[in-house]
């Protein structure tokens, strides 16, 4: 026994320097799972690549998936042996991941940038913290809609018959529209299951061409298949630029709601320390500034100094028009809202 211990100790003493040198030279790879498409392109350029330049010992492998539910599906499948270190997804799905023990709670002691975040970027029952704020906007084809719309009810005018594109429930864009209309009509919100909002969809529904615009809501409006609709601000702003102004976006006078993406560390992540460094960087003021100026998501770090040309294209200047929403509570009554949507809104559009 003693001989074995001696051999093991001697071997480790001899081999250790080489192992250490090898591990020092070998970069650590972390897997970051987030949205595909435009988000992937812009996030890679604004955050991932600068992070790798600043941390040569860490390589980031971006794993793109189309939506938050697909991400949680993959994480559930990997629960026994997690392959992903960091995940960026919607706050309601982040709550599911936290409840199921898939995400660990981020600690401000290890990630001091958490202390720099706006208060509404932290959630009591969610392991991660907000990394981007987005908001609902009205989008329209500038050739087809003149003068520009100002109100959500502009989608209900007779001239818009068959020209409205709305991602309907269960998509949260449709849900956001119902919540804004509920508030406008004096509804109590979650307690009233947004019944007033469902009711207020009555004049808009007959004008709707599609409740499932594909590949997203922006494409049919840019190519003229539809004239007006609702979408998320960040993607709308980028599409406004790339379409040479064919598509424009604005916050309607009835208001807007925030959509929140949360950054999470996977419980049992293979590269926990490197993952925390990435999260720390993603929440830092420089990364937040870079991504906001690239894709117009509002920053969650209060210290981020955003160029006026970019901040003016986020909801930051219109905070008075933001309808407060508790997304976690909304997720709890989604089935009941969906039920009303199918029975009272869809039939009006047939």
């Amino acid at each position, binding site marked *: 026994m003693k001989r074995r211990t001696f051999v093991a100790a001697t071997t480790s003493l001899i081999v250790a320097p080489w192992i250490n040198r090898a591990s020092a030279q070998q970069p650590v790879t972390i897997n970051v799972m987030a949205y595909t498409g435009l988000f992937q392109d812009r996030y890679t350029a604004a955050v991932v690549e600068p992070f790798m330049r600043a941390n040569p010992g860490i390589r980031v492998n971006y794993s793109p998936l189309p*939506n938050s539910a697909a991400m949680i599906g993959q994480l559930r499948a990997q629960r026994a042996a997690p392959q992903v270190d960091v995940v960026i997804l919607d706050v309601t799905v982040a709550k599911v991941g936290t409840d199921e023990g898939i995400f660990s709670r981020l600690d401000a002691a290890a990630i001091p940038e958490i202390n720099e975040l706006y208060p509404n970027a932290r959630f009591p029952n969610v392991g991660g913290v907000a990394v981007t704020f987005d908001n609902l906007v009205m989008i329209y084809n500038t050739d087809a809609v003149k003068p520009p719309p100002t109100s959500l009810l502009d989608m209900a005018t007779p001239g818009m018959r068959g020209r409205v594109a709305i991602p309907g429930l269960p*998509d949260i864009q449709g849900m956001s529209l119902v919540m804004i209309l509920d508030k406008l009509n004096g509804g109590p919100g979650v307690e009233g299951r947004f019944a007033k909002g469902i009711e207020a969809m009555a004049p808009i529904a007959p004008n709707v061409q599609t409740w*499932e615009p594909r590949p997203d809501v922006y494409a049919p409006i840019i190519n003229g*298949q539809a004239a007006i609709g609702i979408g998320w601000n960040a993607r709308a702003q980028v599409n406004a630029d790339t379409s040479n102004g064919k598509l424009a976006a604005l916050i309607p006078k009835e208001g807007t709601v925030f959509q929140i993406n949360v950054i999470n560390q996977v419980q049992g992540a293979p590269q926990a320390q490197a993952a925390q460094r990435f999260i720390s960087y993603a929440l830092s003021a420089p990364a937040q500034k870079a991504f906001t100026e690239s894709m117009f998501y509002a920053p969650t770090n209060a210290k981020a100094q955003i160029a006026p040309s970019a901040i003016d294209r986020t909801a930051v200047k219109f905070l008075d028009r933001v309808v407060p929403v508790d997304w976690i509570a909304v997720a709890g009554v989604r089935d009941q809202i969906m039920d009303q949507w*199918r029975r009272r809104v869809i039939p009006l*559009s047939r």
Partner: protein
Amino acid sequence: MSAAATAQGPAQSPRGTTFTAATLLVPILLINAIGFMLPVANLAVISVSEIRSSGAMTGGWSIAKWTTVATDPFYWELLANTVRTSLIVTILTLIVSYPIALCLHRMNGAWKSILLVLVISPLLLSSVVRTYGWIAILSDRGLVNSALAALGAQEPFRLMFNLTGVMIGLTEILMPYMILALLAGFGRLDPRVEEAAATLGAPPYRVFWRVVLPLSLPGVALGSLLTFVLAISSFITPKLLGGGRVFLLATEVYDQAIVTLDWPLAATLSIIVLVVFGLALAVYTRILRQIG
């Protein structure tokens, strides 16, 4: 070794034959168990898993989703819609595919090969691409409505983002499967039987009705089964061409699994789809027996 012994040598006892048959069945049984039975069993387990209103699966058990599906009229309507739509699509596909398949069956030479390739070639394209093609054709400013407008139509016809669009898209997408199944069934058609009927004075429509159609029924049954099963499980075309107005079992499974994260409900509905498949197969077997 004698001749008699040599003749008896290869023959196996009934016990040996059973053993060989069982051994030969082992690979397919294994593949079936791993590729089908296990996932279905997993689906059954998920369907009775407990889920919180937020979508989190807690590890407990519950039959709440089965109760919801059994008691909510929406799901019964969904089932009826799905079966009705799939049946109509199957009938439409059969009506448009039968003449093409018959024509192909009767052709010879290079043209037959060229047309056969043309019939099969849509299968080389993803159904997503083909469905987008239909969007370009059926939209308000698409090929059909532009032609109708040129002929004086005041308003565009709504040919997509409704059930009409879904049926047009599914019919076209499923046609190659129906044509191939029909062509396989037409193998029983003997031209001499048709000639005999004609020689005996039967007009062409009677030859078709009394000879061609009955002989092609096995192909019709096979094609219909295949088309029905594919129609009932299609979700891309109904999603793209239904405009969120057409609720079918497959689209609901997609929404529950991918959008609302209600995996137990998605699993419950998936099992119902499997039961419908089983019923369709039973009907097909019964029809085949009657034809036979």
